[in-house]
């Protein structure tokens, strides 16, 4: 809502600055998002150069056919009579005009100087509406009312420079979608008197309105009130400058005086109006009804629109003339030949208008107000104010009386029992009861005693009809709080009984995983949860794999975001491909986030309000996943030497690092059957009975389908839940300090296809109690060993909790291990 401050000042005597006004409104609940200064720069020296002038003489320019050479009196304050050259054709000697003198800066930034126009000096300028910023284009200059005194500052009469408040009106306050409504807020918050609504009643002439037009509300559920008045003999023409200025500054375009008046009243009071050309209403009757089956209407923009049965129209006895509250039809509009008007003001059902507005695809200033739900009390006010203006500005004769028909009346405002102590208890601030009552009165609530004794009975508060949002006593407390001022509230903190700020194990595990991987050089990414329906197809998942059938959105924004992801890999691979395309040499990324899987069986859990159940079921499965993708070495290129290229063992190292970071032991790795992984260079991680996920080298054909050609990409995708249940458990002390550890290396040659894990298993069994760890630290295949064989070097770390190990102990373990390797795997010491 754009509110020109000079307009607001007509209704409430605000005498401080626009900035202070903005602050006052913002801090009392009508957020001023900004102040838009329109018109000429508002520096007082500049504004002093705009004056009311009178054209004394007007002669042809000696050297130009279309220019006039004028003398214009701008009064002693403006330096007396100026010679001004002007190109406009719409004025005569004796006219009162708007003049800007040399030195003035105009609305468009142009700085005016004395000029020589075709050999004649021109000292000043007679201004048009366009040059004043009152409308986008204007054919001639502004001719002002003759009564305005020559030499007076123009700013006394016209908003040459205007601060416009840009107010965000919240949806509960349709009453503030009007200048008067905002003025009411200012009055309440600043304790200033509010001028009565600027309605006025014009003199009435001719036959009564009721004889000229009848109104029937056929669908009373969609129209609470419909009022009409009749104005005869209007002449359609241009609006005066002040009206154009106000509309333009408020963000609407001046059209003609008739349309402008209806818009002006809507902006002033918040009541939309519609003018019909009386001559075009057939049967002298307006009918408010739902659209008929297959009914069409050609709206003002020339589009033939099919109406739906719940669209409300205003019709005459033959056809629909208006989509109620939204759009007029070509058939009944006011045009330049119109003389007699039927003026409508009505209150329509808000949600219905909103739906129709969506159906039609058109949202106007009027529909925007109707949508929010208006106060029917405004109907006669809007009609009266507009009638007065039609009389004053369009030469119309207003017919006596009005047609006023009610549909379904809204309920009367509630009578609310209000205790000032409740307010103190909720706000955390004691506001004196008398002050609370005074605030509610300033907001136009009726405040009565609630009975005796006053301390217990409190007050009975009846909100005004335009405040439908005030339904409960807590709504009144909010009013007291905001008008009293939140800046007056103390800053306190809640008691926080029984509160302890701790993360769950699951949350700690996710933090640890992210920190571990970033510590290892990986960048975290966050990808959209939605992907294209076929984003996972290239992974080659089997038909019975839950990941193969993603959950689809009913209303996706695009085909690229049609379903929610069942795996994080497509998103991560897109990140890899995108960065490679942007010339990244290495991409090492991970994402922690959810996948979304359909329910395999069962129905959706129904909400169970009020049930205290710690295990509230989720509608669908949303497992937390960790996905990693590596392409290129983990560390960057350096002059100190080439970094290790990434391969299966890099991604395995990442997986093992995550496990180590969480303190999880006992991982088992099995060959993976994930269809998108290289069958020979991929593994699944198992923890107990949980298959946590697969990792390894992405198949080159799969990589190519994700736009990654000729680059090795390693990926991993693990479920976080099995990590969370095992991770970050409490570590128990092991005495490695009292007695020293003993190391023992041995290298054995065995069949090349014996997995290292199998060999280590033999080593561990044979090593017995004294063997603490066994780790492969070297692998050799080549000339030094026979074909088909390989050498594995193992470091044994031995210890005892009771004593320092002797050479004999160590030799014993070594012998047992070697014997077992020889016996079980045919291994030979190298």
């Amino acid at each position, binding site marked *: 809502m754009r509110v020109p401050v000079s307009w607001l000042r007509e209704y409430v005597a605000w005498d401080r600055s626009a900035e202070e006004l903005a602050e006052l409104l913002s801090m*009392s609940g009508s957020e001023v998002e900004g102040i838009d200064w329109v018109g000429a720069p508002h520096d007082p020296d500049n504004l002093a150069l705009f004056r009311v002038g009178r054209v004394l003489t007007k002669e042809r320019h000696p050297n130009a056919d279309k220019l006039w050479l004028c003398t214009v009196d701008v009064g002693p304050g403006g330096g007396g009579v100026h010679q001004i050259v002007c190109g406009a054709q719409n004025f005569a000697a004796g006219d009162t005009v708007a003049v800007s003198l040399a030195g003035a800066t105009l609305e468009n930034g142009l700085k005016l100087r004395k000029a020589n126009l075709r050999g004649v000096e021109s000292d000043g300028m007679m201004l048009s509406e366009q040059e004043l910023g009152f409308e986008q284009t204007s054919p001639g200059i502004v001719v002002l009312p003759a009564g305005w005194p020559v030499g007076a500052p123009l700013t006394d009469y016209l908003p040459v420079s205007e601060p416009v408040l840009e107010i965000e009106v919240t949806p509960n306050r349709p009453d503030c979608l009007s200048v008067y409504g905002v003025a009411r807020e200012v009055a309440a918050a600043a304790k200033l008197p509010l001028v009565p609504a600027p309605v006025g009643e014009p003199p009435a002439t001719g036959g009564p309105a009721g004889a000229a037009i009848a109104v029937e509300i056929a669908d009373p559920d969609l129209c609470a009130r419909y009022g009409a008045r009749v104005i005869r003999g209007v002449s359609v023409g241009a609006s005066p400058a002040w009206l154009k200025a106000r509309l333009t500054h408020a963000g609407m375009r001046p059209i003609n005086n008739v349309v402008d008046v209806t818009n002006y009243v809507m902006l002033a009071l918040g009541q939309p109006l519609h003018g019909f050309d009386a001559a075009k209403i057939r049967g002298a009757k307006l009918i408010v009804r739902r659209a008929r089956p297959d009914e069409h209407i050609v709206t003002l923009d020339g589009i033939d629109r099919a109406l739906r049965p719940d669209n409300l129209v205003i019709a005459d006895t033959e056809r629909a003339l208006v989509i109620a509250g939204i759009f007029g039809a070509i058939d009944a509009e006011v045009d330049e030949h119109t003389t007699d008007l039927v003026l409508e003001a009505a209150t329509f059902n808000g949600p219905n208008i909103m739906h129709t507005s969506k159906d039609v695809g058109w949202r106007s200033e009027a529909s925007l107000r109707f949508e929010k739900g208006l106060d029917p009390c405004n109907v006669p006010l809007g009609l009266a104010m507009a009638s007065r203006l039609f009389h004053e500005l369009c030469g119309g004769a207003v017919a006596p009386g009005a047609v006023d028909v009610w549909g379904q009346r809204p309920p009367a405002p509630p009578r609310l029992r209000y205790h000032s102590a409740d307010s103190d208890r909720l706000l955390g601030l004691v506001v004196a009861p008398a002050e609370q009552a005074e605030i509610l009165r300033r907001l136009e609530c009726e405040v009565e005693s609630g009975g005796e004794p006053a301390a217990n009975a409190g007050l009975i508060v009846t909100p005004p009809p335009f405040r439908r949002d005030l339904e409960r006593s807590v709504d009144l407390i909010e009013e007291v709080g905001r008008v009293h001022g939140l800046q007056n509230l103390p800053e306190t903190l809640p008691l926080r009984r029984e509160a302890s700020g701790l993360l769950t194990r699951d949350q700690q595990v996710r933090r640890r995983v992210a920190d571990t991987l970033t510590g290892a050089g990986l960048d975290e990414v966050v990808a959209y949860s939605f992907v294209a329906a076929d984003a996972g197809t290239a992974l080659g998942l089997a038909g019975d794999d839950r990941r193969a059938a993603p959950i689809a959105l009913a209303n996706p924004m695009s085909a690229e975001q049609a379903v929610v992801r069942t795996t994080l890999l497509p998103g991560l691979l897109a990140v890899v491909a995108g960065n490679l395309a942007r010339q990244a040499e290495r991409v090492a990324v991970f994402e922690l986030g959810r996948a979304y899987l359909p329910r395999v069986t069962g129905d959706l859990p129904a*909400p169970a309000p009020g049930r205290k159940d710690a295990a509230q079921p989720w509608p669908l499965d949303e497992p937390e996943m960790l996905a990693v993708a590596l392409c290129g070495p983990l560390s960057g290129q350096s002059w100190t030497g080439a970094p290790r290229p990434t391969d299966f063992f890099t991604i395995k190292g990442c997986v093992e690092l995550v496990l180590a970071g969480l303190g999880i032991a006992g991982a088992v790795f099995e060959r993976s059957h994930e269809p998108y992984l290289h069958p020979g260079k991929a593994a699944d991680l198992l923890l107990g009975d949980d298959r946590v996920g697969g990792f390894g080298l992405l198949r080159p054909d799969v990589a190519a389908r994700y736009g990654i050609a000729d680059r090795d990409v390693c990926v991993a995708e693990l479920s976080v839940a099995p990590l969370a249940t095992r991770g970050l458990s409490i570590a128990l002390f092991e005495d490695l300090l009292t007695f020293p550890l003993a190391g023992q290396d041995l290298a054995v040659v065995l069949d090349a296809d014996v997995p290292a894990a199998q060999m280590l298993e033999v080593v561990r069994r044979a090593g017995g109690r004294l063997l603490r760890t066994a780790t492969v630290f070297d692998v050799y295949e080549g000339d030094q060993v026979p074909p088909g064989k390989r050498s594995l070097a193992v470091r044994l770390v031995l210890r005892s909790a009771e004593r320092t190990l002797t050479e004999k102990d160590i030799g014993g373990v070594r012998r047992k291990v070697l014997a077992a390797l020889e016996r079980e795997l045919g291994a030979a010491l190298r």
Partner: protein
Amino acid sequence: MDDAQLHDLQERTPELAALLAEGSAAAAAAAEPDALEQVRVRFLGRKSRLTEILRSISSLPAAERPVVGKLGNVVRVELERLVAAREDELRGASLAAALTAERLDITLPGVPLPRGHRHLISRTIREVEDIFLGMGYKVAEGPEIELDYYNFTALNTPDDHPARSVDDTFFIDQRTAIRRAAGDAGASPAGAAAVSAAGSPGGDAAASAPVVGDLLLRTQTSPVQVRTMESQEPPVYIICPGKVYRPDLDATHTPMFHQVEGLAVDRGITLADLKGTLHQFAREFFGADRAIRLRPHFFPFTEPSVELDVQCLLCGGTGCRSCKYSGWLEILGAGMVDPNLYGFVGYDSGELQGFAFGMGVERMAMLKHGVPDARALFDNDLRFLEQF
């Protein structure tokens, strides 16, 4: 050797004094270890004059013997000290020369130890979490695919509220949400209830149209508040971070974004408590020297409702484009929990008061780090990610 000794030496054994002077000058003059070794041999060696003098003491008159013996030893000790000192000097100088010769170009970069970057969104969420963890709040989480009931109904959202429309909420095609086990015939639709609820009677045309029912992508993390209150008795002090979804895409809106909401429900919680909490949060997040203000606003699930503004981070409050010349940036919405909400979760609204607040993580991160376009947060361009 002090002055008295030197004087004594010159008086009584001029030759020894001369030897000392000569030896000390030679040691000082030795420019390298070899030369110094020669000095040592010449003045202290077995064939040196000093050794000779000390050996021949027995041939001196008895009266001179103790004097020459004592002073000779003094000279020997002094010369040894001087040679050793010179030796240290020379060693030091040669080490210094050697080290100097090993100079590196210290402006070359160091060995690139890996350094990853957490995403700006998760960093910001953690920052917010940590502030509230410190104030005694727990972190609560809930489903992103939510039931209409939790996302709207239980949050006081009227049935005809625009937020419930397909323009403002992503709905799930319910046919895809439930799949029967592989044994069942064909790709089966979702629960029949959902289908009939949406009024789709079946047939070919209906089969291809999405079926809208109770499932949607949550538009806020508030459903977690409802679920938490459903599942536990008060007091409740939680924050709810997470992904939320709305169909919007421009420089400040992405269809997926993140929120952190908070909820405190207890006996006697006041709007002043909310003010204190939010101000403490804002001071910690944006810095203690930044002005903040609480401003009345409207939300359907809080009463009274407020917004928190922080002094513009760009202009410091003097007014600029990013704050629309107001000097203030709106950072979060909040309010006292509407008593209606307690009814949905079985809390006693007579007994309890509480507040709730919610902030957009992207906006907070963008404001704090000067990121101009929200879409950049999800492009995952390393040139962007690695700045933070």
